[in-house]
C-alpha cells in the first residue's frame, strides 16, 4: 500500500493525520502537485492511495475512512453524515476562503465566507454536548474536519468570530500529537502561505453569487422551480412595453464632430490609458484599456449620452530613445512608425475612438508647461539635488535605462538603471555595480544634479477631500479604491517631475533648461492635449467639472497615477480642471498559465490576432467574456474555442439563425401574426428582466457580467423554441399554425433585441443581424432607453432579409496549431510582423520557401499555411461563395500542399482523401 501526497495540499493533511492517528503501516511518497498518480483521472488529483488490489482511491475522505476501517474502527452513520457534509458544504466554502486568503490577500473576508458552516458546526457540537463530533471518542469525522479546518483555524490572523464549541473541539483534537505533526509535515510551519503553490494550481472557485458558472447538471424539473416568478403586474408591464412599438422621435445617430458638452445632457468624457508607443500591445493591454473603454463608449452613445472617447499613444521617454538607437532612427520616426502600428491594430479590433492622437505635439508642450507654471506659481514645486550617473564622454546624465550594470541584490550582470530584470527589484542607478553607459560603454561618474519635485504632501488634504467625494459618488472599481487607499496610508512623498533626457516635453524654467518632464507627469496631460488636438474648444471638456463626468479606463498598475499623482497636478494647478469621476481598473489577463512576454514570443499580440483568421468580433467577444473584472483571469485557446462553439455558435448564433429561418421557411419571409398566451407573456417578462439587468450592470461598467445576460436571453429563446416546436406545429391545423406563428414572431423579435444588446460587444455581428432581419434603425435606441424596454420592433407583416449563419466552429486541430504557434519561440516572421492587414498569412509563408529539398522548418511553416488556406476554402464553401473564387483558392491550396510535400521530402502527389471513405 502506498500513499501519495504533496506539500501544502490541505487534503493531504487529512490523510496524513488519519495515517498517524490510526498507525496503519503504509509508505508515504511526496510528489509534485502536478503529478498524475491516478491513471484514470485526467487532472492531477492528490492525495491518492494505491490499494493492495492495484486500485487507486482518490478521495481524501474515502482514504481516511479506509485507514480507520482497516485499523478496526468502522464508520457510523453519523460519521457518514459529517463526511458528506464536509465534502458538499464545508469544502466549497473553505476552497473559496483559502483562495481569498492565500492568493488574493483578502484575509479579512474569510470569516464571512466561513460564517455559515462554522455556525452549523458550532450549533451541532453544543447541541450534542459531547467532546467529539460523534461521541466520547475521536472518530474519522473529527480527524477529517479538524484537518480541513486546521489551515484557517490555526492562523492567528484570521478572526473567525466566537464559536466557543468549535474552538473547544478544535483544541481537543489538536492535543492529539499525531494530528499536529501531520499538519507540520504538510504546511511546513508556514501557515496559510505554505499552501500558496497548491492554491495557485486550483481553478478559481465559483463566486458566491454563482453568477459565473452555474451548475448545469440540474434536470428540467428543478430548473423550472428555480425560475424567476413574475407577478400579474409585472406580466402586464411587459405586455405594455411590448406593444409600445418603436419610438418615432428622430435620432441623432450620426456623430457631429467636434462633440462638445451640451446643457441638459449627460456629458461623458471617456479616456483609455495611453498605450506606450514602442511596444505592440498584447491582448491584456487591449482588454484592459481600449477595448473596455470602447464597449462602454458604444453603449453610452446608444443610451443617448453626449459622449467623447479619446486616446492616443504615449511617445516620450527613455524606452523610445533606446528603441530609436536600436533601429537607427530618430525618436520621432520611431514614434511615427509605431503610432501607425497601434492605429491599425485598434482599427482592426474596431475600437471606435472619436479621436486617436499622440503625446508628441505642440499642444502637449503648451498645456504641460502651463500646468507646470501654475504649480510653480502656487508653490507646489520644490527643488532638490539628486545623485546621478553621468557619462563624461556622451556629456549627459544617464537616466534609467541608459545605464546597465551588476545588480546589487542578485548580481545579475545586465541590470538596468531603474530595475533588475532578473530579481525584479527596483534599483537606484547609483547603486549599480560596475555601471556602464549603454551608448558608449564608458564607466559613468556620480554627479549631483538639480531636480524639481511635485510637493504631494502639501496637496494631500485637498486630495483626500476630493477623493472622498469622487469615490463615494462615482463608480470606482474596488481595486482602484484599495490601491489608492494604500498609497495614502503609506503617506505621500514629493515626486521628481524632471529628467535628464532629450526626448520629452522641455521644462520651461530657465534653471532646468537641459531637462524634460518625467513621463509620469507628462503622459496623463496627454489626455488634455489629445483633446486639444481634436478641438480648440477642449477646455469645455477639461475645465468643466460641473457638466462633465470623466471615466478613466486602465489596468490596475496604472491606478496610482490616475487617482493620486495626476489629480494632485491638476488640483495644484488650480484652474477648475475636470477630475476623474469614475475610475475603472481591470486586473491582469494572463496567457494560458503564464504571462504575456514579448521577448519570449509568448502570447498573442495585437498585430497577430488578425493573422489567426478568427474574426475581430469573436476576439472581442472572448476577451470581454474573460475580462479580468474583479480578479485576474486568463486567455486560453481551448477555452476560446469552447466559448466560441458553445456560446456563440450553439447558443446565440443558433437561436438567431433558427428564429430567422422559421420566418423565411414557414412564413415566406414575413413576420407572422402573434397572439400572446400566458407562456409568451412570461417569456417577455423574463427577457425584459434580463435586459434591465444588462442595463443596470452596463451603467456600472460591469461589462463582463452584463454580457452573461445577453447569453441568458438566447438560452431562454432556445428553450422556448425547443418546447414549442414550431416546426411541428406548422404542419398542424389552424390553431397549431397560429401557435407556430406566435412563437416564430416572438423569437425573431428577441433576435432583434439581441442584436441591439450585442452592439457594444460585437459591432459587426450586430449589424449583420439587423441587416438579415431588415430591422428598422430606431429599434436600437428605443430598447436601451431608461431602464430598458423590450418592444415588438418587427411587427406582423414585416419583411425580413436573407438569413445566414453568423458564426463558424473553431476546430480542435486549428486551435491546437494556434496554441503551438503562440506558445513561445515564435518564428521571427510572425513576431516582427508589423505590416498592415493586407498581407494574408499563407502568402507570406510561401515566399519563405524558395529552394527545393527537405527542410523541417519550412515544412512546419507550410503545414500551417496549408491549414490556414484549408480553413479559408472551407469558409468560402460554407458561405456559398462564387465558384470561380473557390476554384482559385483551391488551386492555391493544392499548390501549397505540393510545396509542403517537397519540403517534407515526399513526392508531390496529392495525398489520398482522408476520413471520407465508409467501411
Amino acid at each position, binding site marked *: 500500500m502506498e500513499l501519495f501526497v504533496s506539500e501544502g495540499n490541505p487534503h493531504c493533511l487529512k490523510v496524513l493525520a488519519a495515517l498517524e492517528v490510526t498507525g496503519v503501516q503504509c509508505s508515504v511518497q511526496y510528489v509534485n502537485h502536478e503529478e498524475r498518480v491516478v491513471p484514470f483521472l*485526467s487532472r492531477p488529483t492528490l492525495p491518492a492511495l494505491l490499494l493492495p488490489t492495484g486500485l487507486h482511491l482518490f478521495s481524501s475522505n474515502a482514504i481516511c475512512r479506509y485507514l480507520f*476501517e482497516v485499523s478496526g474502527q468502522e*464508520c457510523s452513520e453519523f460519521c457518514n453524515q459529517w463526511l458528506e457534509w464536509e465534502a458538499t458544504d464545508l469544502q466549497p466554502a473553505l476552497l473559496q476562503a483559502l483562495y481569498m486568503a492565500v492568493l488574493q490577500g483578502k484575509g479579512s473576508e474569510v470569516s464571512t465566507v466561513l460564517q455559515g458552516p462554522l455556525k452549523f458546526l458550532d450549533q451541532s457540537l453544543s447541541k450534542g454536548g459531547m467532546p467529539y463530533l460523534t461521541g466520547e471518542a475521536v472518530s474519522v469525522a473529527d480527524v477529517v474536519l479538524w484537518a480541513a479546518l486546521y489551515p484557517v483555524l490555526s492562523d492567528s490572523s484570521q478572526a473567525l468570530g466566537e464559536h466557543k464549541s468549535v474552538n473547544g473541539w478544535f483544541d481537543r483534537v489538536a492535543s492529539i500529537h499525531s494530528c499536529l505533526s501531520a499538519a507540520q509535515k504538510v504546511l511546513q510551519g508556514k501557515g496559510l502561505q505554505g499552501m500558496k503553490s497548491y492554491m495557485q494550481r486550483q481553478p478559481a472557485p465559483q463566486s458566491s453569487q454563482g453568477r459565473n458558472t452555474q451548475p448545469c*447538471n440540474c434536470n428540467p424539473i428543478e430548473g423550472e422551480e428555480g425560475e424567476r416568478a413574475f407577478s400579474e403586474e409585472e406580466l402586464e408591464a411587459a405586455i405594455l412595453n411590448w406593444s409600445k412599438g418603436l419610438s418615432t422621435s428622430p435620432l441623432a445617430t450620426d456623430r457631429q464632430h467636434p462633440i462638445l458638452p451640451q446643457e441638459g445632457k449627460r456629458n461623458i468624457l471617456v479616456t483609455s490609458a495611453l498605450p506606450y508607443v514602442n511596444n505592440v500591445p498584447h491582448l491584456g493591454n487591449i482588454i484592459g484599456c481600449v477595448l473596455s473603454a470602447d464597449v462602454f463608449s458604444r453603449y453610452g452613445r446608444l443610451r443617448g449620452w453626449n459622449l467623447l472617447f479619446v486616446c492616443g499613444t504615449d511617445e516620450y521617454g527613455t524606452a523610445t530613445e533606446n528603441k530609436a538607437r536600436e533601429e537607427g532612427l530618430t525618436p520621432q520616426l520611431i514614434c511615427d512608425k509605431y503610432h501607425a502600428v497601434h492605429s491599425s491594430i485598434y482599427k482592426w479590433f474596431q475600437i471606435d475612438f472619436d479621436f486617436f492622437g499622440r503625446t508628441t505635439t505642440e499642444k502637449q508642450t503648451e498645456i504641460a508647461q502651463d500646468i507646470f507654471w501654475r504649480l510653480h506659481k502656487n508653490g507646489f514645486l520644490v527643488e532638490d539635488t539628486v545623485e546621478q550617473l553621468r557619462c563624461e564622454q556622451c556629456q549627459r546624465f544617464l537616466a534609467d535605462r541608459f545605464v546597465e550594470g551588476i545588480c546589487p541584490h542578485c548580481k545579475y550582470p545586465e541590470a538596468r538603471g531603474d530595475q533588475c530584470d532578473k530579481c525584479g527589484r527596483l534599483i537606484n542607478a547609483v547603486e549599480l555595480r560596475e555601471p556602464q553607459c549603454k551608448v558608449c560603454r564608458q564607466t559613468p561618474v556620480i554627479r549631483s544634479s538639480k531636480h524639481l519635485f511635485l510637493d504631494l504632501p502639501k496637496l494631500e488634504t485637498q486630495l483626500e477631500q476630493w477623493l472622498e467625494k469622487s469615490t463615494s459618488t462615482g463608480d470606482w472599481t474596488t481595486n482602484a479604491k484599495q490601491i489608492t487607499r494604500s498609497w495614502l496610508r503609506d503617506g505621500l512623498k514629493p515626486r521628481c517631475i524632471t529628467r535628464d533626457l532629450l526626448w520629452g516635453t522641455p521644462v520651461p524654467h530657465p534653471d532646468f533648461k537641459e531637462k524634460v518632464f518625467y513621463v509620469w507627469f507628462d503622459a496623463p496631460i496627454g489626455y488634455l492635449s489629445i483633446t486639444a488636438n481634436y478641438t480648440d474648444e477642449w477646455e469645455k471638456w477639461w475645465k468643466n467639472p460641473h457638466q462633465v463626468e470623466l471615466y478613466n479606463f486602465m489596468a490596475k498598475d496604472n491606478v496610482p497615477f490616475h487617482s493620486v499623482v495626476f489629480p494632485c497636478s491638476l488640483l495644484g494647478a488650480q484652474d477648475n480642471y475636470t477630475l476623474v469621476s469614475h475610475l475603472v481598473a481591470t486586473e491582469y489577463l494572463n496567457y494560458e498559465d503564464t504571462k504575456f512576454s514579448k521577448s519570449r514570443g509568448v502570447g498573442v499580440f495585437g498585430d497577430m490576432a488578425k493573422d489567426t483568421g478568427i474574426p475581430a468580433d469573436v476576439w472581442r467577444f472572448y476577451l470581454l467574456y474573460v475580462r479580468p473584472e474583479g480578479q485576474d483571469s486568463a486567455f486560453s485557446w481551448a477555452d476560446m474555442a469552447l466559448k466560441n462553439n458553445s456560446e456563440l455558435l450553439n447558443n446565440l448564433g443558433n437561436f438567431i439563425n433558427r428564429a430567422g429561418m422559421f420566418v423565411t421557411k414557414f412564413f415566406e419571409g414575413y413576420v407572422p401574426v402573434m397572439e400572446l398566451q400566458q407562456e409568451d407573456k412570461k417569456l417577455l417578462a423574463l427577457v425584459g428582466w434580463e435586459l434591465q439587468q444588462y442595463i443596470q450592470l452596463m451603467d456600472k461598467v460591469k461589462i463582463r457580467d452584463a454580457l452573461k445576460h445577453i447569453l441568458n436571453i438566447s438560452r431562454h429563446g432556445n428553450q422556448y423554441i425547443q418546447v414549442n416546436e414550431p416546426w411541428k406545429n406548422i404542419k398542424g391545423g389552424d390553431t397549431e399554425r397560429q401557435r407556430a406563428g406566435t412563437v416564430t414572431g416572438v423569437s425573431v423579435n428577441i433576435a432583434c433585441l439581441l442584436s441591439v444588446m450585442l452592439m457594444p460587444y460585437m459591432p459587426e455581428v450586430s449589424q449583420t443581424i439587423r441587416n438579415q432581419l431588415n430591422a428598422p434603425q430606431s429599434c436600437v435606441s428605443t430598447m436601451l432607453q431608461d431602464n430598458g424596454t423590450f418592444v415588438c420592433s418587427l411587427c406582423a407583416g414585416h419583411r425580413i432579409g436573407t438569413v445566414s449563419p453568423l458564426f463558424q466552429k473553431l476546430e480542435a486541430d486549428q486551435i491546437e496549431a494556434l496554441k503551438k504557434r503562440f506558445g513561445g519561440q515564435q518564428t521571427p516572421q510572425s513576431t516582427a510582423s508589423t505590416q498592415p492587414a493586407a498581407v494574408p498569412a499563407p502568402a507570406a509563408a510561401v515566399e519563405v520557401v524558395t529552394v527545393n529539398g527537405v527542410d523541417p522548418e519550412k515544412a512546419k511553416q507550410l503545414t500551417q499555411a496549408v491549414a490556414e488556406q484549408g480553413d479559408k476554402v472551407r469558409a468560402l464553401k460554407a458561405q456559398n461563395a462564387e465558384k470561380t473564387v473557390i476554384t482559385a483558392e483551391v488551386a492555391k491550396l493544392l499548390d501549397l500542399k505540393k510545396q509542403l510535400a517537397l519540403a517534407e521530402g515526399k513526392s508531390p502527389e496529392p495525398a489520398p482523401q482522408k476520413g471520407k471513405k465508409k467501411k
Partner: protein
Amino acid sequence: MALRELSSLEKYLGLKKPNKYSTQGDKKVPVLQNNNGPPLLGLATIACHLAKEAKRPELLGDTAESRAVVQQWLEYRVTKLDSCTKEDIKFILKDLNLYLQDKVYLAGNRFTVADTLMYYGIHPLIVDLAIQEKEQYVNVTRWFDHIQHYPGVRHHLPPVVVLKNRIYTSRHH
C-alpha cells in the same frame, strides 16, 4: 429530485413502509426523519442507511476496500457530479470511461449503491449526449445501459436509447 431518487431506491430495496423525508436549505439537501433518533442528512448518508435498513449490507461493499470505493463514488456523485459545469462534463465522462474500462460495476464485480446513485446523477448528462459521443464514451455507455436495465433500478427516469452496433467507424488519426 433527490427525494425521488431515495423513493426509487426504497422501491428497489423492497422497503415496505416508505420513510418520511424533507429537504433543507437552498440546495435542497434531503433529510430523513428518524423515529428512533436524530434526523439523517445528505443523499449519500441516507442511501447507505436505507441499504442497512433493508439488511443488504453487501450493497455497500463486501470488503474494506470495496466499501471505501463505494463511499468514494457516492462522494463523487454529491460533489463533482452535482456541481459540474459544462466544461467539467467532458472530463467527468472521459475519466469515468477510462475507469470503467476493466470493470462491470463501479466497485468491481458487484452491483452496489454507488452504481445506483451515480446512475441517477449522470442520467441528465447522458440524455444530452449525441450518438457519436455515446460511442466515444463507450464504457460509460455500456455501464449506464447495464444499470438502467438492472431490475428495479430505473423507476423515475426515462430510459435512454443506446445503440448496440456502432454507426461511426473509428476515426482516422
